[in-house]
């Protein structure tokens, strides 16, 4: 089978969820109750709004991740072709990794790898 048939798996997956949701929304008995629709917070009504600006503390991680993820894309072709490219490419990739490592070390020393 070809890669186009991926669409099949997409459809089958969606079908599985869709049919079950449909069944579940039609067959089981339903009862409405305003308290049922409350968000669960250990039995206490929620105070304040939920979606407010949130200090997640991993923006820096996201940025470092972005850097590394892009770099991984560069590594993939080399990894596949490494045997044919030989020693020269290896030395080049060592230099590339060295630069990456310096970057990581810098971020580490700067304290970017800390969840605040």
């Amino acid at each position, binding site marked *: 089978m070809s890669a186009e048939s991926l669409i099949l798996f997409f459809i089958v997956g969606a079908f599985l969820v869709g049919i079950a949701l449909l069944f579940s929304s039609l067959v089981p008995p339903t009862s409405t109750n305003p308290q049922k629709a409350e968000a669960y917070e*250990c*039995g*206490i009504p929620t105070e*304040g709004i939920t979606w*407010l*600006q*949130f*200090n997640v503390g991993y923006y820096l991680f996201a940025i470092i991740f972005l850097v590394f993820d892009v770099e991984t894309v560069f590594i993939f072709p080399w990894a596949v072709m490494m045997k044919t490219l030989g020693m020269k490419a290896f030395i080049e990739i060592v230099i590339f990794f060295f630069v990456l490592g310096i970057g990581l070390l810098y971020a580490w020393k700067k304290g970017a790898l800390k969840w*605040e």
Partner: protein
Amino acid sequence: MKEIINLPVSNIEEEEYHINMGPQHPSTHGVLRLLVSLQGEMVRSLKPHCGYIHRGIEKMCEKDTYPQVIHLTDRIDYLSAHINNHAVCLLVEKALEVDVPERVRYIRTIMDELARIQSHQLWWSSFGMDLGGLTCFFYGLRDREMILDIWEETTGSRFLQSYNCPGGVMQDIHPNFQKKVHAFLKTFKKKIKDYDRILSGNVIFENRSQGVGILSKEDAISYGVTGPSGRGSGWSCDVRKTEPYSMYGKVQFNEVLRYECDTYSRYMVRMQEMHESMNIIEQLIDNIPEGEHSAKMKAVIKLPAGEYFQRVESARGELGLFVVSDGNKTPYRMKFRTPSFSNLSVLDHISRGMKIADLVAIGASLDLVIPDIDR
């Protein structure tokens, strides 16, 4: 650039995030509500809201006679029910100047230590569970079962025994008691090694608990954090040592102290205490003297008018019992100074600036029992 600097600070303040942990929350171990104010994952402050299971035991005590009070004390800190009973009995005996038989002292001390072990076992179980290691929970409960069986055989109940009574104990120990306690000690000495292997030495656990929830000795004293939690801060506050009662003055045991002041040290104190408790039981179990299981008491117990105070070391810390008597058969005022109540008050102080996950670990390390807070 200037605008960015001049952003009002109050905006950031408003981004506080309020979350209710409890009353229906897996890590509050009962119906305790903590209103946690968060900034991201960081706990800025928290307010405990208790009283969800306040039963007014102090008021109920005012209508009960002294022997009747005992069955209520079981329900204060249900995990150290024996010890709570013991406190009432000691107070009544002290006030009436009754001398209880030696056998009773032995039995009570052994029962207290068994209660301490099973309480710590359950604490260990739930500690593991709070940190996400569910397996610990079942190991702890499995081993606790043996103690409950020993109790059931002697006292008839597994949990709320009401075994002590003023002057002695309700009934003599079962003939199998000593044999079963020996069997328990033998098994548990092997099993407690598993506890260390699966949790204490685990690198994840160490990282989760070390340096978390620092409680200095001064704060521990000021907040009245007694028991293993206080001893984890290096405060020698064991009532069994400072004011020995029953057999504690005569047995050899160490007061476990640790000085790291964090969750890990509170954890290690309890682990060590289980060993010490087994040590105490071993010294006593073969030497229980023959004799009556109860002293002769009057049919109606009346305490002379006055004020009495009795302290015992429950599994969670110092249990203080303050009784004002007006000479009647019922106490005029009975106040329980329960350890968890004071231990809870420190939670806000030591969990500030920690993460939510740490808050759970700290709460578990303080070993709060909610009925003990609410009474």
